[in-house]
């Protein structure tokens, strides 16, 4: 299916958010996720089913003022 990860068009076979993150280099990283502008907590990623057109945001700590 076709989705967006941080705004980048991506084709994936991943069925869940956890699978998607593992396939894209985010295993064992400190991140937070949102799908279609809604926060998806870490505990729900394993069961969160992706669908065509989903917009996934993967955020990590960054410098801030």
């Amino acid at each position: 299916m076709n989705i967006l990860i941080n705004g980048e068009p991506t084709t994936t076979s991943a069925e869940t958010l956890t699978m998607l993150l593992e396939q894209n280099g985010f295993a064992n990283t400190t991140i937070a996720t949102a799908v279609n502008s809604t926060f998806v907590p870490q505990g729900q990623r394993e069961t969160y089913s992706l669908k065509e057109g989903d917009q996934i945001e993967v955020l990590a700590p960054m410098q801030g003022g």
Partner: protein
Amino acid sequence: MREFYGTKLSNALMLGTAQYPSPAILADAFKRSGAGVATVSLRRESGADKEGQDFWALIRKLGVHVLPNTAGCHTVKEAVTTAQMAREVFGTAWIKLEVIGEEDTLHPDTFALVEAARILSEDGFQVFPYTTDDLVVAERLLRAGCEVLMPWGSPIGSGQGLNNVFGLRAMRAHFPDTPLVVDAGLGLPSQAAQVMELGFDAVLLNTAVAKAGDPAAMAEAFSLAVNAGQLAATADPMEPRDMAAPSTPVIGKAFLS
């Protein structure tokens, strides 16, 4: 020093982590300042570069309290979602709530700010709202659940100092029991000292240190200024007066004319 949501800080300086020339200089600035709080943010991560992971490792080594922000958010939904994500990533209920309403001045959208503060407070967040010196907004923020207020000194990154000393003094007088932090706009240590002399509880700054020619030295200068201002506030400053009053006693002065 007042407590911030039950946390007593050893130092009244809160320091941002953005715009430093290098990670090593950032760490040095924190070391020399003794700042007890570091503000941080969240941004998109690349699975290839993983820049955020290195940054997070650096911050954890500083051994300071982390205050995540919602910088760049313009709506209630954006700010609330960012705060939820920040709580999970940083493992803290603290959130520096920014909802920007105007691009040139980065003036907060105070209507959206109050609404976001209410939602987040009800969800267990401990909100540090980036606001103005508007007393009505401040009152609404407290009613929304905030236990700390963070009025700006002047626009973020401007280095203008305190644009409305009267407003800040009024805020201190109106909310004597609320921890108050001046957040944003400071450019010089003397301005930070003035904030503390007004009886504020802390200052939060970033650009003035990060963009100095020697950020670590400037961080230490701010720390000294904050401590001086804090000490002065507790020393009960004299009241200013319009006319001169000789400090040298006139009794016993020789008659020589």
